[in-house]
Structure formats: structure tokens, C-alpha cells
């Protein structure tokens, strides 16, 4: 679930959200943190890294429970709110 959310939302964030807000587009998801910081979006970069930690922990076998899923959903909600504001 977290993996699916992450690939979908990294695409949303890197391609659509930044295009909508900054008229800039990014083809690669790698280096997204530095890209967002270059746009002056330090807080957003922080939420993104926090979210990525939950996803990567799942990738490396950390057993995710309801709290991890809720943490991921809360962070995505913040990111979506930013993107659509």
C-alpha cells in the first residue's frame, strides 16, 4: 500500500504539482528533495522525506502497522493540501 502510494504521489508531486505551482516540470523522481528545496519549498521537502522514510522502511522489511499507514496518509494529505492551495 505504501509503495503504491509513494510512486503515484512522487509522480504527482514532481510532475503535476510543481508544474501547476511553478510552471516547471521534472521527468525524474530522483533528487526530488533537492529540487523542491531549490524551489524554496523546504517544509514540503521535509514532509516528502518523512513520507519516504515510511515507504523505504517498508521496502527494507520493517513491518508496517496501522500507525505507519496513518502517518503516510497524514503526510500525503499535507502534500496534497500544499499542491492544491
Amino acid at each position, binding site marked *: 500500500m505504501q509503495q503504491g502510494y509513494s510512486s503515484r504521489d512522487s509522480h504527482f508531486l514532481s510532475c503535476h504539482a510543481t508544474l501547476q505551482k511553478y510552471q516547471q516540470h521534472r521527468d525524474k523522481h*530522483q533528487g526530488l*528533495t*533537492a529540487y523542491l*528545496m531549490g524551489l524554496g519549498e523546504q517544509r514540503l521537502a*521535509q514532509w516528502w522525506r*518523512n513520507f519516504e522514510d515510511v515507504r523505504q522502511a517498508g521496502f*527494507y*522489511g*520493517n513491518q508496517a502497522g496501522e*500507525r505507519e499507514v496513518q502517518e503516510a496518509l497524514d503526510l500525503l494529505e499535507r502534500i496534497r493540501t500544499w499542491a492544491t492551495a
Partner: protein
Amino acid sequence: MKMAPIPAWLDNATSALVEETLSMLIKRHANILLAVILFGSVARHEERPLDDSCPSDVDLLAIFDTTDRLVKPYREDIFATIIDACALHLDAPREVNVLLSDRTMQTWDAMFLDNIAHDGILLYARGSLPAQLAARQSLQERLEDKGVTR
């Protein structure tokens, strides 16, 4: 797993970002930070090169003195620290990922912990390693003493 410097095979800019991240984590979270371990392809010196279309990231595992899996209530502050370090080194060609772990490490996959114990490079430690890693380290050392290699 012995304390070791940041590997020399890492480019200067990324190495500076790792150093900054480590330094800020120690300075701002000294009371809860137990260890920082470099793991993954860079630790094994099997990283994809910078001229690759997708160069390897640098992976760090930061272990904190809490039993909370999400390292709350410190989590937000820790990521603020990580981002502050990034802000000083936006030229680093490799991204530095920091995974957070509680001190019990009980929810991690056994193979992941085995790999950390085998390949990991300990960049910082306060006191002894968490039991999950120390036990693996001890077993690995005993096997190596008997000439058994991976």
C-alpha cells in the same frame, strides 16, 4: 562493526552532505541518537556511478533511544534537521536517505539486519550497539574466527 570514517570512494560533495547530516544529528539530537550506520550499495562499494542515468543514493540508518517504531515525538524535528543539512549541500550529486529506527529494531526484517551487521559501516555510536545488531555482529565475528566467510 567498528567505527569508521565516511568511505573515500564517495565524491567530495556527497561526502560533505553525509558529514553535515551526521554532525547536525549528533549536535541536535545527542540525547536520543544511539548510532548512525552507512549501509547498502555505497557501504559495499557496489554503487552505481555518477554518470549512470540513476546513480545510487547513500543510505544511512539512524537508531534512536526510544521504543516507538516511528520515533515519535522526535520524528518531525529529526526530518527538519536532515533537511537543514541538505540545504547546505544542494550540489551533492547523490541523495542521502536517512532511515529512522527505534532501539529495539524488532520490526525490521532479519535479512536486512544481517546485511547491516555484515556490510554496514558504523559512522557514529554512543555506547554499545542495540542487541539486535550486537548479537549478529558477535555471531559474524565468531564465524570469521573459524574461517567461515560469506
